[in-house]
């Protein structure tokens, strides 16, 4: 019986357990997702024991040793993977069996999501939370599948992925949206050292489930915001950072949405910090002669947001959900136009 390898890739607090029978591919995923791999194990020996044990969820990752030869056998039940998870089985095909077609298609058939592009074919059952991918051994195909899966999962709970860089400063997240060339990577590169980069390409937005939307609870006396970190430890670290005073009219309500770091990098080619923080503002990037922040109408805010949201499936129910999420986001989170030169002084306006 072939050994089985499993990685738990957790993005946005949503763990997806990926199964493969290729140690090489598992190592490839470990390298690609780095700190977003919160658990891994090798399993499937005939005696019900598992080689490569000792890899507990959240342990410090070392991609070279992650799937090395078994040291001490131990039982599958010894591993503490996330209880609530989604599972994806990867079947690797020999190179050359897929096409170069770049257009991705996502459709619902018989209650299952079918996702396909030239380089992969995948299926996802939203009820059982399980699916499979057929692809060659490369990290790009499954990356596309993961993005699609997350958009499908997030849509049902009022979240979305959006073409935007995002970063945390003083405990609050700021999103910088724009199409390719708008300056997402540039503004990420210009970020000063106190800024933690979540992504320079695709931001991960979820509703803040810890509190009701629109409840006024920001406490100026406390003057602290908390950023939760899950980079290394299973137990979530809370990093308290000094928060800048609230700007009246800019952020008077508790942010109802939070941004998470993602491994989905753009030109910066650097995966984001595995953090989350309440979203303080969304900036629509425009390059111009001087740095400035300008108001936009609510209609423009919604329109711009919808234009930047990643959306793969042509499905009436999902369209309604994403549309509603964009409306709610624009209602709760200040959306502004950020004109930038571009130079590092633009960050004087942020946070």
């Amino acid at each position, binding site marked *: 019986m072939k050994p089985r390898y499993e990685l738990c890739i957790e993005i946005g607090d949503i763990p997806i357990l990926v199964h493969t029978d290729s140690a090489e591919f598992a190592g490839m995923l470990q390298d690609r997702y780095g700190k977003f791999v919160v658990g891994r194990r090798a399993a499937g020996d005939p005696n019900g024991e598992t080689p490569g044990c000792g890899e507990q969820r959240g342990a410090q990752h070392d991609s070279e040793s992650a799937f090395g030869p078994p040291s001490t056998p131990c039982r599958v039940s010894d591993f503490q993977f996330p209880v609530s998870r989604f599972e994806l089985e990867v079947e690797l095909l020999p190179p050359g069996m897929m096409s170069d077609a770049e257009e991705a298609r996502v459709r619902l058939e018989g209650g299952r999501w079918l996702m396909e592009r030239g380089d992969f074919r995948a299926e996802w059952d939203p009820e059982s939370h399980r699916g499979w991918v057929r692809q060659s051994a490369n990290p790009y195909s499954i990356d596309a599948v993961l993005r699609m899966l997350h958009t499908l999962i997030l849509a049902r709970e009022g979240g979305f992925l959006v073409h935007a860089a995002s970063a945390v400063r003083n405990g609050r997240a700021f999103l910088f949206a724009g199409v390719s060339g708008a300056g997402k990577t540039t503004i990420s590169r210009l970020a000063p050292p106190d800024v933690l980069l979540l992504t320079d390409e695709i931001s991960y937005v979820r509703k803040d489930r810890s509190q009701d939307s629109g409840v006024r609870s920001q406490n100026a006396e406390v003057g602290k915001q908390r950023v939760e970190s899950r980079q290394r430890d299973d137990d979530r670290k809370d990093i308290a950072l000094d928060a800048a005073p609230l700007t009246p009219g800019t952020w008077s309500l508790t942010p109802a949405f939070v941004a998470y770091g993602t491994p989905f990098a753009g030109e910066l080619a650097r995966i984001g910090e595995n953090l989350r923080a309440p979203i303080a503002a969304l900036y629509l990037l425009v390059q111009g002669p001087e740095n400035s922040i300008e108001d936009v*109408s*609510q*209609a423009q805010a*919604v*329109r711009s947001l*919808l*234009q930047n949201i990643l*959306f793969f499936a*042509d*499905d*009436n129910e999902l*369209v*309604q959900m*994403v*549309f*509603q999420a964009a*409306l709610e986001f624009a209602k709760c989170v200040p959306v502004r136009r950020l004109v930038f030169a571009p130079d590092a002084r633009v960050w004087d306006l942020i946070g």
Partner: protein
Amino acid sequence: MVGAQIPVFRFGYMSPLYIARSNEIAARQLGDEMIVMSARDSTLFSLNNVGLVIWQAADGRTSLEDIVKNKVCAEFEIAPEEALKDAENFVRELAGHGIMRVSDKPFE
């Protein structure tokens, strides 16, 4: 050889056209703007104030000609024939993206 017929939009010359908003859309009015998203292809539309009047009047029972005559021309300074021509182009484009239904008979 008979060339392709080019439709001429004049009041009373064309058979009536009825329009109804599709059910497979997401839409919300924000200020003077109507934002509409097609569930068929996720295309996003932003309707201006004239488009908004037509959109709101698209009940499936009122003809486009009546909508233009009684709503559009009543609110905006625009020649009726030009307005009807533009309106028909407008609704046909929306229909092409599945966010408007167009028929020569009233909708049930």
